[in-house]
């Protein structure tokens, strides 16, 4: 899953490097100009910090409209072939996404569609599926959610129990999913369900599930922040036509893993942008906060203990920015996957530390939450701190990430 300081950081805050191709420079210039000229007016009530916390209809309408415009302008599906509704460029997506982040415009609502579903379909989908589903993902006409985690299958995803039973040319689905981001807004779900109880790894199949049907119930879950970021979804004899199956029966685990651990991962794929704040802009804001927040009449920045903690973070954030520069250099990266696989755990933990540090800088002011007229930036820091656990838990918790790194990169014995 996308998260505040991981994949996003890979693509942001690059020094404006001399672009290799003149067309690339031109394209970047075009993106920059377009975004300047088409920046949407602010919403009446502020948008949540990240696209997975959106719940209100007015926000949804506003964000769908914005994503559609960006898609038409070529900032989304930039490198996807034209036949699938893309724009058919080569290696321009990272430039477009980079400029979207840099320009501080709103994020894209359909981030699961862009980040997970579209890449999955592009690799594993049938020709008909690609032609039917990709374009409405890009334009946000159809919002997607993802049905992977279950009450009994979180970090140990392969234990999932939601069943899929073949009945003629359709499948009957029973069970439930949880932590489903965008569940209340979505009309489609990328679903993993078990077609064979005996074969743990080869008994899972991937489907495209229409949510608007009698067998599907969606119930929102309130997060610790009070926001409704995600849902639980119940299936009682829900129906999926067999032509909505992705890849072979039993190939679901392979399909899921190829997207989850693909080096290009979520964000890079077709242009998902889930946050408008980068790690570097956040730490700069934190430094400003420490310089302007006074305790006992003295700026917090002048307290060596707090200053040291902030500078430590500043250094680590510079390191992840430099990781993005080093990762493609074969002679220096220690193997193609070593740095990319670190990006989630490192980025999300630094993000959490950054928010926690901000609370410390604010002291009692950190108690002031959304809606309080005295709250610094309308409660951004306590909200950000609580939401930072999205990064360290979802999409493979930090503990699972460390298992993956130890096993895949360092060759340590497998835990399972």
């Amino acid at each position: 899953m996308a998260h505040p300081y991981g994949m996003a950081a890979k693509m942001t805050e690059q020094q404006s490097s001399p672009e290799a191709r003149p067309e690339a420079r031109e394209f970047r210039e075009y993106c920059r100009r377009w975004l300047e000229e088409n920046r949407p007016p602010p919403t009446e009530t502020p948008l949540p910090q990240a696209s997975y916390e959106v719940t209100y209809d007015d926000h949804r309408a506003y964000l769908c409209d914005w994503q559609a415009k960006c898609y038409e302008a070529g900032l989304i599906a930039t490198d996807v072939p034209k036949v699938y509704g893309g724009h058919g460029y080569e290696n321009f997506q990272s430039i477009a996404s980079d400029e979207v982040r840099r320009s501080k415009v709103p994020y894209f609502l359909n981030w699961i569609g862009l980040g997970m579903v579209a890449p999955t379909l592009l690799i594993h989908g049938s020709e008909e599926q690609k032609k039917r589903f990709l374009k409405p993902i890009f334009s946000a006409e159809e919002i997607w959610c993802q049905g992977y985690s279950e009450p009994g299958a979180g970090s140990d995803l392969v234990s999932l129990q939601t069943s899929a039973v073949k009945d003629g040319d359709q499948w009957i689905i029973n069970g439930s999913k949880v932590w489903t981001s965008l569940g209340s807004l979505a009309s489609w779900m990328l679903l993993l369900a078990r077609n064979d109880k005996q074969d743990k790894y080869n008994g899972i199949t991937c489907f495209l599930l229409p949510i608007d049907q009698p067998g599907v119930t969606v119930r929102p879950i309130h997060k610790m922040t009070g926001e409704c970021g995600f849902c639980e979804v119940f299936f009682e004899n829900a129906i999926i036509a067999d032509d909505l199956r992705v890849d072979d029966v039993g190939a679901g685990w392979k399909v899921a893993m190829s997207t989850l651990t693909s080096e290009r991962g979520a964000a890079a794929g077709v242009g998902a942008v889930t946050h408008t704040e980068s790690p570097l802009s956040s730490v700069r804001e934190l430094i400003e906060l420490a310089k302007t927040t006074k305790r006992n009449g003295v700026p917090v920045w002048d307290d060596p203990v707090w200053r040291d903690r902030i500078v430590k973070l500043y250094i680590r954030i510079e390191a992840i920015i430099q990781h993005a520069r080093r990762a493609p250099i074969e002679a220096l990266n220690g193997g193609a996957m070593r740095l990319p696989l670190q990006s989630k755990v490192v980025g999300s933990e630094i993000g959490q530390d950054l928010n926690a540090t901000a609370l410390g800088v604010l002291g009692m002011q950190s108690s002031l939450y959304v809606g309080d007229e005295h709250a610094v930036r309308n409660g951004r820091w306590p909200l950000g701190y609580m939401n930072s656990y999205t990064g360290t838990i979802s999409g493979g918790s930090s503990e699972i990430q460390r298992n993956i790194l130890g096993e895949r990169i360092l060759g340590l014995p497998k835990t399972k």
Partner: protein
Amino acid sequence: MAQPQDFGFDDDIVMLKDAANRFLGQRQTLVQLRASLKGTEDPYRGEERQGWYDPAAWQEMVDLGWAMVPVPESAGGLGLGLVAAVAIQEEIGRAACPTPLSSTLQATFVLKEAQADAHLAKIAEGSSMALALFGEDGAPDADSTTVTANGNKLSGTSSYVQDAQKVDGFIVAAKASEGLGLYWVPKESVTIHRDRIVELTRDQARIELKNVEAEVIAEPGSGEQVMARALPALLTLLAADMAGAAEWQLQTTAEYAKLRVQFERPIGFFQAVKHPIVNMMIAADETRSLVYNAACAYDHDPEDALRCARMAKASASETAAFCSNRSTQLHGGIGFTWESDVQIYHKRQMHSQFLFGDASWQRQKLAELL
């Protein structure tokens, strides 16, 4: 200022790094070092320890052109930048190699900033040098020197001089009435008082100067500026050495965790062992990325070089402490013994951690730039 996206690691520098890796890997330096340490182990009753290095290896390094890598072409060198020097230093760190090259590379960047071509030419010809900058308290800037200059005569003692027994001469920071100056003195003119140190791969000394005749490298009053310009290079070289050593600590600990069996499993199976090893990798990688960034900034964007170098050394000091700690702990009893190479790296890292200022010092200075 625009920096190359690849840090300046062109094909030649990558080849140089590979060659250094292979050369140092084949030398079995630590086997020889251990032979030289025999009988010196006991800190109370052991024999005196000499600052051992392999003179033949040093001569080969000179012949391979490593010493002249960052020396300007005008002084007979190859005219490459800090990125190239860092490529070599990282490999020296990985091998924990005792060599006058470490000090000589540092001296080269001080001489470059002082435009001291005559002395740079000596390095290109195979001469070795070390920096003598610090006063008795070891404060991490040249201003702490207690050596005084009267004309071109130097008096006083310079402390914490690295590789003092290996080199042909010293670049000494000394205070004159006009301000800080930098001077070159040959080793024959000074008295070397060897320190008894924890570290086994370096030697360290106080060098005593009694009205010694010196050659001026930076005129009194200009020394501070020269050192300020050279400092980013010195910090980055040291951080590169530490990054190389940290990678060794990581790989060696991971290998051990695959081999050592307890409770009928290799200990690397257990997450209490696996996760800290991954944390070593995360730390080592952060330092490496910051080191390459700092080297590139020194070569291409001097305005930003100090900020980047402070970040690299701060990160390296934290990484060195952490990887040393975990490498000894996760090796269990064997890592605590003299017999294990883990202790050699641990001590090299402990030493490097404080050279030119530890992590909190670097962060304090960095904060002034933010």
